[in-house]
C-alpha cells in the first residue's frame, strides 16, 4: 500500500519505520527541515518539507494514489483540514487523524475522518486501569460512536454464578470475550458461567456503555 503521513515527529517516525518494515510504501510530509533530512538520510527520498494541510504539498506527495492518509501533527485543526483535503480533494479511501483534544472526536467523525486516535484517551485508559477503585475501563473508541469496554466482575456482583444464556444484554451491545481470572479465554456459549474477577470485553454503542457495565457490576 502507499501511505502518506503528515508529521515526522515521534509518532510519525515510528509509524514510518513500522510500515516500511511491513513492506509498504511510505511518504512523509514534515515542517521541520532537520527532521526531513534525518528521514531522507535513513530511509531514502521519502519525505518533503511542507505543511500537510496545503493542497500543493499534498499534490507533491502524490496523495492521489495513496491508499491511506495519516495526520499526526500536534494541531487538531491542521489534522482535520489535512484529512478533509485528502478525502474530498484527493479521493483517499482511508483517513486517520491523531486527535489531541478529545472533545473533537465527534466533529472529526461527522466530517468523515475514518479513524481518530486520541492520545489523551489512551493515556486515560491506561491510568484508569491502574486505579483499583475503578473496576471498568474504556479500552478503545471505534468509528461510528462505538466503544470497546472492559469490565471486571467485582465480588458481590449479581451476575457472578449466572450463565451467559440467562444474562440479558442491553440493546446495541455485544459480548466480545470473557477472560477468566487466570487469564484463560472462556468459551462463549449459553452455558458459560460468569465468575467474580472475570474480565468481560464488550462492544457497545457509546450511549449503552453504562448499561453494559451495570449488567456485570450491579449488586442488586
Amino acid at each position, binding site marked *: 500500500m502507499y501511505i502518506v503521513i503528515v508529521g515526522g515527529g515521534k509518532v510519525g517516525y515510528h509509524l514510518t519505520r513500522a510500515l516500511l518494515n511491513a513492506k509498504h510504501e511510505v511518504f512523509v510530509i514534515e515542517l521541520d527541515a532537520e527532521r526531513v533530512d534525518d528521514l531522507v538520510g535513513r530511509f531514502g527520498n521519502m519525505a518533503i518539507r511542507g505543511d500537510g494541510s496545503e493542497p500543493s504539498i499534498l499534490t507533491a506527495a502524490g496523495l492521489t494514489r495513496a491508499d491511506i492518509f495519516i495526520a499526526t501533527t500536534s494541531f487538531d*485543526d491542521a489534522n*482535520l483540514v489535512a484529512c478533509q483535503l485528502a478525502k*474530498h480533494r484527493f479521493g483517499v479511501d482511508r483517513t486517520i487523524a491523531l486527535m489531541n483534544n478529545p472533545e473533537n472526536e465527534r*466533529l472529526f467523525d461527522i*466530517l468523515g475522518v475514518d479513524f481518530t486516535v486520541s492520545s489523551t484517551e489512551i493515556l486515560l485508559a491506561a491510568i484508569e486501569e491502574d486505579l483499583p477503585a475503578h473496576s471498568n475501563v474504556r479500552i478503545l473508541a471505534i468509528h461510528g460512536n462505538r466503544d470497546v469496554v472492559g469490565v471486571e466482575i467485582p465480588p458481590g456482583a449479581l451476575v457472578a454464578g449466572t450463565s451467559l444464556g440467562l444474562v440479558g444484554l442491553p440493546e446495541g451491545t455485544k459480548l466480545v470475550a470473557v477472560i477468566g481470572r487466570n487469564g484463560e479465554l472462556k468459551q462463549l456459549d449459553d452455558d458459560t458461567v460468569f465468575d467474580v474477577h472475570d474480565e468481560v470485553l464488550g462492544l457497545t454503542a457509546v450511549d449503552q456503555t453504562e448499561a453494559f457495565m451495570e449488567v456485570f457490576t450491579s449488586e442488586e
Partner: protein
Amino acid sequence: MKVLIMGCGRVGSYIASTLWHDGCKVTIVDSQAESFFLLPTDMRNQGDCTIVGDGVLEEVMRRAGVVESDVFVAVTSQDNRNILATQKAKHLFGVPRVVCRIGDPMRQEVYSNLGLNVVSSTRVASNLILEAIRL
C-alpha cells in the same frame, strides 16, 4: 440578530463594529485582549461584547453564546483554525448561518464544494492589484 465573531483583527473588528452599530447583538472572541483596541470605545466599554480566549475550544464558544447565535463568523488570519471553528459551529452547535474566511484559494474551493459558506479575499485583492499594475 446575534452574531458571534472569532478573530478581532482588521476584518473582524470592522465587521463587529458595523454590525454593532446596526443594532445587532455582537460577541467577538480573540486570544489576545489587546486586539479589542481595534473596536470602537463605546463597544469595548459595553463589557459583554468581548471575550478573551481560543475561539476554537468548545467551552469558549459556549461562553461566547454560540448556542443562541444566529450567525457564526470565523475571520482569524489562520485558515485551519477558521475551518475547524466554523465546522464546529455548524455541525456541533447547529448555528443556522456560518461564514468562514479562507485565504488559500485551493482550500476555499474544497470547502465551498463541501457546502461551507466561504469568503476569500485573496483572489479579489490580487486581481485588484493586477488591475492597478496594468493601468
